[in-house]
């Protein structure tokens, strides 16, 4: 670690390429914190949006027209309005309405970023799951019905496992989009990667270097996600589906 720090310090002195995040302990801590905040934000939103998306997709197949209408309205609403405005709406407009606990707001910028991005991603996940559910053959569902499964059981044990596999490529895409969208949390000062990098570059005046680092970070995260999802897709493959 010291060698790496020494090399980057030498690099700065020799060429003027100023990557303080490798040798300045303060900048390094900030940057690493930002990196993990981005990962944490993505992970929370991913888990919540997959669960809520599955529920929404289930409700979208409801026999009650009002429920179907409400889900459709929710999905279209979040898909056809700018994510940044949604974020501002929650943080600046809804946020102040929440009660304060001991003088501290119930949800901070990170909390509101989770709420806003989760709702956005839920809308996308619901559509994706919907398409996946429609891809499950009718005969399979009828067979489950003949075996006496209830509607909820069929959804949980037959339809969903098959639908999840069909939707894998679309979900990968969605997950990549989610990671990219977490950068919006910068706008409400959530301490994620872009925000922390912006603090570094405004103090150290090393915008070009930090820009490259940022881009490399995101492209790497996305690359890793693609690899993991590809591996998962192969692991989950059911004989008789796909090629």
């Amino acid at each position, binding site marked *: 670690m010291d060698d790496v720090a020494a090399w980057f310090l030498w690099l700065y002195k020799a060429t003027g390429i100023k990557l303080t995040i490798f040798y300045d302990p303060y900048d390094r801590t900030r940057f690493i914190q930002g990196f993990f905040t981005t990962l944490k934000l993505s992970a929370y939103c991913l888990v919540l949006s997959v669960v809520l998306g599955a529920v929404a997709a289930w409700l979208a197949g409801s026999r009650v*027209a009002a429920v*179907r*209408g409400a889900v*459709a*309205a929710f999905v*279209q*609403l979040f*898909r*056809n*309005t*700018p*994510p*940044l*405005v*949604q974020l*501002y*709406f929650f943080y*600046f*407009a*809804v946020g*102040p309405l929440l009660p304060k606990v001991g003088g501290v707001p119930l949800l901070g910028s990170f909390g509101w970023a989770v709420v806003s991005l989760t709702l956005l991603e839920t809308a996308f996940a619901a559509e994706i799951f919907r398409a996946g559910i429609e891809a499950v053959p009718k005969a399979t569902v009828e067979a489950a019905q003949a075996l006496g499964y209830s509607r909820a059981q069929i959804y949980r044990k037959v339809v969903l496992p098959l639908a999840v596999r069909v939707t894998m490529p679309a979900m990968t895409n969605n997950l*990549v989009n989610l*990671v*990219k*969208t977490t*950068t*919006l949390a*910068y*706008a409400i000062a959530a301490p994620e990667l*872009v925000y922390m990098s912006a603090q570094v570059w405004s103090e150290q005046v090393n*915008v*070009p270097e930090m*820009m490259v680092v*940022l*881009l490399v970070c*995101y*492209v790497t995260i*996305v*690359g890793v996600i693609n690899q993991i999802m590809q591996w998962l897709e192969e692991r989950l493959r059911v004989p008789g589906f796909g090629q």
Partner: protein
Amino acid sequence: MTGAQSMSKSLMTASTGLALAGLLVVSIVAAQIPAAAEKPSVMELLWKWTPLLAQGFLFNLLISFCAMAVGTAAGVLMGFARISLHAPVRGTSWIVVQFFRNAPWLVLLFFVMFLMPFEVRVGGITIPFPDWIKATLGLALPIMANIAEIVRGAVQSIPTAQWEAARSLAFSRRQTLWKIILPQCIKRMLPPWMNWYAILTMATTLASIVGVSEVMTITNRITNAEGRTDLLIPIYTYVLLAFFVYCYPISRWTRRLEARYAER
């Protein structure tokens, strides 16, 4: 899709716009209650600021048109590079496309904002680059990469037999591409192209983060100037509604085109 089904579906989704409009009305009505007599009501405030907000929104649309035009032109060229017969060209364009598709829009925007000069001197003439032009270029980059993928996908979806038939009729590669392949591709490219336009329009609000005076910046300025907490939900809902009214028909239309082309 049968007529009745599509009818009920469009009715169902029409409720979405109503839901947003309803939220706006409810929030305005709720805001009326504590408003003191001498203060202007939220409705009056919204009405007062509507011309300015509309101006900001039109600026967003201007940015979206320009970015889409630049992104499409560059994307088509990049798409040709992706299907080039020359391996280095193919490889380089693949890297460029992957890079711009996987980088977050906001980071690309920062990249262009900070690293592009505010003016360029060519000979004796100084060409200025105001912020909004830079933002437009920043937004055009991811559009370019995604359009390139659409072009490549569409060209590859045309049966190889058509290329072979064209060659047997002595068409050159360029002629085949322009006169035979691309005209058929347009239909396949139109729905995803429209989809990206809608995404871009919504992304134009990012320009507010880098200091362009578009609708989001103006909204924040208004809320700061008025200092009214009861104005917050109505005004943000108002902006959401403006985008919804613009983007939702585009998305409906895209769906309809997709369904129509899929039938054939």
